[in-house]
């Protein structure tokens, strides 16, 4: 059997996890990651990495729940192992609070996280402008540690790395048999998908090691996510904004909103501002496409458009992407079927 040569474009959390899944699950393949940016310069590196899913409009809830559960279970076993620190994964408890009672009082993912329940009156007292809340334990996946860990795992499986900006998927033919497009926001140019747009997020990374819980406003606009090395304060959701430079006024506003929820943050020090452009899209695109041009053929698996929810579903999606790659690989190996591509 010839080795199937797979190229994964994009080295964020989606690209790396997809590459690892392919290397583990697709028999007789070689995997090469090609990207102009690697950690710590990817969009994923800015994300706080808390596992709380964002509902996608057109994907069935059962599928979203499966992706989230697979990701949660996968990271959960890492968190309880000695690898947890190297992978940057740890348990985190906290509260999601609402200024008015949400229509969906129990979200679809309530039984995936641990110990999910409504907040008590006594717990809500400290948030005078909020009337309802959820308390639960979830996982935090520190991308700045997780991504290098994924890179190591990929190397262990024989994966190769190429730093290069891909302008057109056809550049990769005939060197590669299958291309997996994990280029996130880059897909707008790379494959001409105008449905992809940036959702600018600005955050602060501060030193406040006494903060042991996450606090998230139900709208998702204000949040406090403590990690192993810093606490992430956020945030913003600016659709269509491509500006990667931090805005001082926005930083002040974020800090003020977070201090309103957690007054002790006023004593936080060492503040870093970061900006990331989330790969916004009405839906995650996870599907095969057979490209043909001038008699040449290229199998593509698209895997992009995760918006705010990339980390929360990355592993479940990566498993699905690997399955699609496997289908492509089997099709390539069956001579009778090749002409049908």
């Amino acid at each position, binding site marked *: 059997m010839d080795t199937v040569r797979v190229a994964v474009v994009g080295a964020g959390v989606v690209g790396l996890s997809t590459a690892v899944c392919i290397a583990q699950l697709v028999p007789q393949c070689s995997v090469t990651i090609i990207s102009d940016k690697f950690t710590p310069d990817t969009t994923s590196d800015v994300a706080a990495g808390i596992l709380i899913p964002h509902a996608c409009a057109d994907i069935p809830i059962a599928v979203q729940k499966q992706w989230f559960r697979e990701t949660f279970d996968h990271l*959960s076993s890492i968190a*309880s*192992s*000695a690898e*947890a*620190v*190297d992978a940057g994964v*740890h*348990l*985190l*408890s906290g509260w999601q609070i609402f200024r008015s009672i949400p229509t969906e009082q129990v979200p679809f993912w309530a039984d995936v996280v*641990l*110990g999910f*329940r409504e*907040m*008590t009156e*006594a*717990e809500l007292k*400290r948030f005078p402008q909020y009337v309802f809340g959820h*308390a639960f*334990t979830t996982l935090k996946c520190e991308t700045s540690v997780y991504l290098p860990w994924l890179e190591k795992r990929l190397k262990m499986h024989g994966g190769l790395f190429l730093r290069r900006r891909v302008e057109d998927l056809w550049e990769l033919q005939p060197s590669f048999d299958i291309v997996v497009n994990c280029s996130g926001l880059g897909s707008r140019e790379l494959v001409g998908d105008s449905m992809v747009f940036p959702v600018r997020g600005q955050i602060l990374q501060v030193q*406040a*090691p*006494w*903060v*042991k*819980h996450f606090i998230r406003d139900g709208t998702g606009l204000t949040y406090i996510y*403590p*990690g*192993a*090395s810093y606490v992430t304060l956020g945030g913003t959701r600016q659709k269509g904004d491509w500006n990667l430079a931090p805005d001082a006024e926005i930083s002040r506003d974020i800090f003020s909103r977070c201090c309103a929820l957690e*007054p*002790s943050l*006023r*004593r936080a020090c060492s503040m870093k501002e970061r900006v990331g452009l989330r790969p916004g899209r009405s839906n995650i695109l996870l599907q095969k496409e057979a490209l043909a041009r001038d008699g040449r053929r290229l199998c593509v698996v698209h895997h992009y458009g995760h918006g705010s929810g990339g980390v929360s579903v990355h592993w479940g999606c990566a498993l699905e992407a690997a399955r699609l790659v496997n289908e492509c690989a089997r099709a390539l190996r069956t001579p009778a079927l090749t002409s049908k591509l």
Partner: protein
Amino acid sequence: MPSLATSLLLTMRVVVIGAGVIGLSTALCIYERYHSILQSLDLKVYADRFTPLTNTDVAAGLWQPYLSGPSNPQEMAWNQQTFDYLLSHIYSPNAEKMGLALISGYNLFHEAVPDPFWKNIVLGFRKLTPRELDVFPDYSYGWFHTSLIIEGKSYLEWLTERLTERGVKFFQRKVESLEEVARGGVDVIINCTGVWAGALQPDPLLQPGRGQIIKVNAPWIKHFIVTHNLKSGIYTSPYIIPGMQTVTLGGINQLGNWSEINSTQDHNTIWEGCCRLEPTLKNARIAGEHTGFRPVRPQLRLERDQLRVGSASTEVIHNYGHGGYGLTIHWGCALEAANLFGKILEEKELYRMPPSHL
């Protein structure tokens, strides 16, 4: 109402012996309540050890009473008062300076146990779900709730600052007897000498509960994990308690052991027990190791006493014997000590307590 003339004439000379959490919080509580009523409150603290060398400094600082109800029902109220008092400070910008933070976590057991008497004092108390118990394969039952950390060293520094601002003076001296202090011309002695109270007045009920702890850098650990071995007793089973900057590992409680030296055997017991509970600790760097003595007593001693030196009589308030729950109960005890102080003032006709206290 006492005559204004009487209350303005006298100075109350008060000495607090002991500068751990009990001594300093009692001093602050008495000062706050009475300094404006008396013409002059001369308040001093005598201690041979100050932070960071007190037993309070060694405590992990998790607010949590013992599991079984206290033999003295007043202790329940004192625990509640302490929690409520600390919680009111948690939401202030001062919290971090005081060494205060909210923390959630796990209490783990090998068998089902009744809910603790303090379940409605802490926040969000519930039993662990089966999936949560999967994280701890050696245990089959447990609780999850949100409590507080009150870190001894920061809290003592904060109390010291508050007292210093109020003109309270500190003296480093080893007190050999209560008489020695009384002879110095003192109206009230507040005995907060903790595990060493027996040196001032024999107390066969008081004994050391030696504890040893390892402090590590493990900032990814955000929950406390306290395990219980009902047969071997409290604090003899591994516990992992994150603090403001480091994580405290422990699980040693040796009654009657006065050795101040860190023991290698105890180190190994703690390390192995905690690593088994939380495998990620293998990556943690050790930041320090300490020994302290819990002042163990069947119930804490908080009561008045009189000391006769020659023809004179000096008032004493004892406030010691808080075992492993000193930080947990300190403020309620300080309030009660202040009540007892008020009664002393009443008797000296310096002050009439408001009717609700009678």
